[in-house]
């Protein structure tokens, strides 16, 4: 499988995972390992330098082959997200940043305007900018122009498990995008992740579906397999979808009749 390229970074795995919602840190670390993910996102607000037991950053930073992608969850505008990103880079040493700005703390939908503004600033500051965004094809091109390394449209609401409900919009984003498209949020089943890479997404990001699974490590592996399978199918070239049987007598046969 070819590499996932984000800015000047390259990755073999096309599954990115989140680290919230797990029942304990050991379960989370085991699931991250099992998933084979090389990019792991962690909220700056869950960094706790004072209490090792309450800290998500420490145990993740120990993992080989894992690049941390801190996220700015909690920020309600561009200014706060930029501050959070700067602090996260200082603490983690990682230049990957997931810009996550959801001013409404209940439905957690990303703010397109503030996200765009933060992305512009952070790209100029040398970050590899990964914006969590509404599935909006116009915004996706705006973010690409702003210097983002990828776009991360939502499949459905965070934690909802409603799958790829934005499919048509994500298809438009994929068609026109010059940077990797990563579906982030809402996936419930590995089949949905396979569908995402099969339709042309470059990667997917999963958190709740793994954290809330009966066996998070096994689910991490299942998502990894699904993402690989979907991507391989895409590369292999899917047969065309036909809505009707092919006519045995071509309608245009008369066009080749010699005059």
């Amino acid at each position, binding site marked *: 499988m070819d590499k996932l390229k984000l800015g000047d970074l390259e990755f073999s795995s096309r599954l990115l995972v989140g680290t*919230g*919602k*797990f*029942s*304990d*840190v050991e379960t989370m670390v085991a699931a991250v390992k099992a998933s084979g993910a090389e990019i792991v996102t962690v909220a*700056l*607000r*869950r*960094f*706790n330098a*004072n*209490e090792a*037991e*309450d*800290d998500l950053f420490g145990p993740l930073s120990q993992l080989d082959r894992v690049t941390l992608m801190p996220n700015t969850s*909690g*920020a*309600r505008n561009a200014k*706060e997200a930029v*501050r*959070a990103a700067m*602090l996260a880079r200082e603490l983690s040493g990682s230049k990957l940043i997931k810009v996550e700005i959801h*001013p*409404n*703390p*209940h*439905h*957690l939908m990303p703010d397109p305007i503030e996200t765009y503004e933060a992305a512009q600033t952070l790209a100029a500051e040398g970050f590899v900018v990964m914006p969590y965004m509404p599935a909006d094809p116009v915004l996706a091109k705006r973010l690409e122009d702003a210097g983002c390394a990828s776009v991360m449209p939502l499949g459905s609401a965070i*934690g*909802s*498990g409603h799958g790829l409900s934005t499919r048509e919009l994500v298809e438009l984003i994929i068609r026109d995008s010059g940077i990797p498209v990563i579906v982030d949020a809402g996936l419930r089943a590995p089949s949905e992740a396979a569908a995402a890479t099969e339709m042309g997404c470059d990667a997917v990001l999963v958190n*709740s579906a793994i*954290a*809330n699974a009966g066996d998070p490590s096994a689910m991490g592996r299942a998502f990894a397999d699904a993402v690989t399978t979907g991507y391989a199918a895409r590369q292999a070239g899917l047969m065309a979808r036909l809505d009707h049987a092919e006519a045995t007598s071509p309608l245009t046969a008369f066009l080749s009749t010699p005059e």
Partner: protein
Amino acid sequence: MFFVLFRGYCMNNFPDWLDPVPYMAQVEQAQRRDVLAALATTQPTIAEFATLLSPAATDELEALAQRAKQLTRGHFGNTIQLYAPLYLSNYCTGGCSYCGFSSDRKQPRHKLTEAQLQTEMSALRQMHIEEILLLTGERTPQANFDFLHSSVKAAAAHFPKVTVEAFGMTEDEYRVLNDAGCTGITLYQETYDPVLYEECHRWGEKRDFAYRIAAPDRAFRAGLRTVGIGALLGLGNPIAESISLYQHAIHLMKTHWQGGISLSFPRLRPESGGFTSPHPADEKRLAQIIFAFRICFPNVPLVLSTREAAAFRDGMAGIGINKMSVASRTTVGGYENGRAEDEGQFEIDDGRDVETFCSMLRQQHLEPVFKNWDAVFR
């Protein structure tokens, strides 16, 4: 019992937008099939909420619990957010008939000096606490806004998240608290029935129902991020209070789209003045109310304090409730000197320490989360 409480509740003295009366028939008349429909819908409204509070829904309590657990885990994961209260002062000019701090109570009054505040905060830090709720009574010369303001500033230097539960304030005062590092406030209406409200709040600034009900709006306008609201269950009919609380929550969410609300379910507890509850809500009723709120507000934090018994808290963790206080002291200076409980605002039922409480959560495969905020967002 249920219907007896109910029939006495016909006075329509609520402000229109909080009035539970139009929905009480739904509560009374809902059938099992209505309850099942309410559980199945993805877009519950106040009609479904009323249905979930009905006697028919009491018979389906297990189904409510299962749905509530699904929704809680979906949004909040397998985690419980923890915080601790810190009482700054028990001076009070208020006349709340049900409260141990009421100005007519003979209990000794204290307020923390700057040094004592530091001592209390380091005791809390040693307990791993990252989020604190600073409390006072009603505004007094001893514990006024300036005292609260300087306490917030001091606390913000040590804790990523500092919130305040005190008296109703002006928008400007809330703005000053916000600038000092306060993330949000908790302010219970206590009862949404204005007549009962006036009876319970016998004197003082808090007597003004309208000023208090609009305080969360002022707090959000001032830029604070979170407001916790609730009714003191046991003062009025708990079903009617819940319906009004629902409407208050909807009002705040519609008006302040960036505001984070949370809902608490304080039950009237015995206190030193001996006030007894006119409408006691038992644990089963309280659980049903919490499940109904979770089903109708899947992504709003629901909070349960140490007022409740350990067994009840253990049972509700992660099946509706996603945020809890832990190892609380409701006395001024309680963390350092363990001052006698009979001086507290109310009696604590779950007195377990942080370690014991967290090991209970872990046994239930729930992660205790202490830090879920960062000072960078101030």
